[in-house]
């Protein structure tokens, strides 16, 4: 059995004169969780729709589970960004209906739907119409609709959108469980914390083009490390220390000076310079950049490139 679940090769999608996705290639292996990141309008949803066969690519090829999408539609689960269910359907019937469209027989689908609803604490609402559920409950029903047929590959478009922190945590656990069962997960988000906590790999998109593909560590390696120092004296002299890229004074209400280090620098020279000058430091740490920093850097760069091209 091949380990590659999804493979996009030089995929381009245009809407009239606008290129929504440009020459996009990436692959996804079995059992992994891929974070598909990008700002609004980056082309994430268009890419997901192409992976589901909802939109055809203008150029390039997409293989899912080793086949064309039409052949494996029933083995994919999908949670769209904007949730949609028939409001007048009962919760269990709504899940079962979508499961039957994915190949399950109705009786099995209803049993499975009720079991899933029970597992998510919605047992007593299984015969309630969707319009009678709270937004959070309806989102859960939608999520269960995406996985009720036991798909091998699950696409979640902005799954955390609109959920409260408790439900977000619950969803994170659910996604981890799906991966642990051997399912392959791709989820799009522009909330970096979820991607940092869940993903094995990341693809960052901006302006329709891929800006990054790799692991979280590889993403963090794109930017130099950053030191944070606290002292009661002026630290602006640190700009002359070798390996220092930039020194930023504390903002209002913050005691921390932020020192951007050059690539490969570990901050030891910085600490040595403070000792030499006998600066009384109350805090010192050196940390890799956050995914947020990497994201802003990559996306900002894309915007800058577009501005130059314009």
């Amino acid at each position, binding site marked *: 059995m091949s380990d590659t679940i999804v493979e996009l090769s030089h995929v381009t999608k245009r809407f009239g004169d606008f290129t929504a996705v440009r020459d996009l290639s990436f692959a996804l292996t079995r059992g992994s969780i891929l974070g598909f990141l990008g700002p609004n309008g980056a082309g994430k949803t268009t890419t997901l729709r192409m992976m589901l066969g*909802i939109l055809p690519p203008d150029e390039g090829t997409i293989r899912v589970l080793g086949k064309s999408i039409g052949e494996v*539609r029933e083995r994919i689960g999908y949670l769209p960004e904007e949730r949609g*269910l028939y*409001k*007048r359907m009962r919760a269990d019937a709504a899940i079962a*209906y979508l499961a039957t469209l994915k190949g399950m027989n109705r009786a099995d689908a209803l049993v499975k739907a009720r079991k899933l609803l029970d597992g998510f604490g919605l047992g007593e609402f299984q015969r309630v119409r969707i319009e009678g559920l709270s937004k959070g409950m309806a989102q859960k029903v939608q999520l269960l609709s995406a996985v009720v047929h036991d798909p091998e590959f699950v696409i979640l478009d902005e799954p955390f959108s609109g959920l409260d922190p408790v439900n977000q945590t619950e969803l994170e656990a659910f996604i981890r469980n799906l991966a642990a069962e051997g399912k392959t997960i791709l989820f799009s988000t522009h909330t970096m914390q979820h991607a940092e906590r869940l993903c094995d790999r990341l693809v960052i998109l901006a302006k329709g083009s891929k800006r990054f593909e790799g692991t979280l560590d590889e993403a963090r390696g794109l930017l130099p490390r950053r030191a944070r120092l606290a002292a009661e004296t002026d630290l602006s002299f640190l700009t002359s220390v070798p390996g220092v890229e930039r020194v930023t004074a504390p903002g209002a209400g913050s005691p921390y000076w932020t020192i951007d280090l050059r690539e490969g620098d570990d901050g030891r020279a910085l600490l040595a310079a403070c000792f030499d000058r006998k600066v009384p430091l109350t805090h010192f740490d050196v940390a890799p950049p956050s995914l947020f920093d990497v994201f802003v850097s990559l996306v900002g760069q894309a915007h800058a490139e577009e501005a130059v091209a314009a």
Partner: protein
Amino acid sequence: MTMHRTFLIARQEFIKYVTRRGFLISILMFPLWIVVVAVVPQLTSGNDSPRILTVVDQTGGSYREAIRNAIGRDNESRNLAAIAHYSGGFIDLSKLAPVTAQMLAHPDTQASRRAFENMGGLDAVRAQIAAHMKPNAPGFTEPMPRYIYAEPPPGLARNPNPKNIGAALRTEGPSEIDAVVVVPPGFGPGAPEAAFWSNAPRGGLKEFVDNALSDALRLAAIRAVAPNVSDNVMLTDGADLESHSPAHADGSSNAFDQGVPIALAVILFVVSVMNSSVLLQGVVEEKSTRMIEVLLSCATPREITTGKLVGVIAVAITTLLIWGLVLLAMMLLASHETVTLAMSSLRAIATLDTVPLLLLFFLCGLLIYGSLFLAIGSMANSLADAQSLLGPSMLILMLPNLMIAGVMANPNGPLATGLSWVPIYTPFFMMLRIASHPPAWQLWGTATLAIVTTILMIIWTGRVFANNVLTTERPPALGQLIGRLLRRK
């Protein structure tokens, strides 16, 4: 395309529509509609007060008598029709004298009217049938006369000038006069005209007077050459010309033969538009709730559009079945005779030869209209958007309804034939014409055209649906719309 997914979508559409309140209302509206269209006018006409007429005859009185006699004959005809209708429901005709039974079975013939007069009119016939009434038969209600003659007020009789006529005519209240007829001295062909005065002529009163005076003039002309001719010539009677059709060679009535095809075609239009509108609303709703995206992740656009159309056909057939049963029940409540007449006409039209074609045209019409509405729904983001696209479409779709009279006047004439070959109208007009036995080449040619049009419409709808159903922009302008409709991808 997976038939299973198409079936599942069709079943879901069917359940979704038949469980809506709107479906129940449409089912209930039909009998109400029948009552409004068919029963209320009858009830109100029955309750209409008689029109009161006076005649100032300045020739000596012969024309006044002619009008009074015509009113008498009209009343007798109405009495005969009413007692015949009553007898049809509550009297065992086989137990009556053959002449009486024949008269009551065919009250519209001249012979029956003469027989009624000879028997002594309504009271005599009521006496004859009284012994043969079925148990629990309700009492007979004598019909109200349409017209009543009243003598003119003395002032008006002396001087029928506009002022006196105006004073005599009804302004309000039941006892006043509806119309004044003034017959001038020397009235006749090429002589001074008679005058008909009325504030608001109703119930064909002017035509009635016109006919009565014409009959009187004809009788006068006949008497000029044959002075002994009797007053009982009954010139108001027409020839008894009974219509026959090979389809009714068994002697069954063809009274509804014209009405049934019109009813079928109108029902096609009503059912198509009603269900297609629901289809359109459903698609707009799925777009606005983004349900459509979930469906597209499970099925292809072709499976979705086909499933939706099949679902609509199922709803339409269910609607028709329920309406048919309701109609049958209402006709049974009205009279057995109506059911017999309607069934006889339906049998004459729906023969073994025509039933497959009727069904084909009906399904094609439904699919053509449904496809069009589905395409419109996929281009709209809201019902307001849909309305802006629907308005012009409805003007085009309504056109056949305006042509019914023209087509039925000559169902195999050039107009009817030409309209039958306009692809989107073919099902409608062929359902109208099928009872008129159009030439075989037209039947099969239009059937082929309807099938081809339907297939092309379904393919086109699938394309429009796939191109537009995920867009959230405003509905296109006309130029963009044509571009979108023709775009391949």
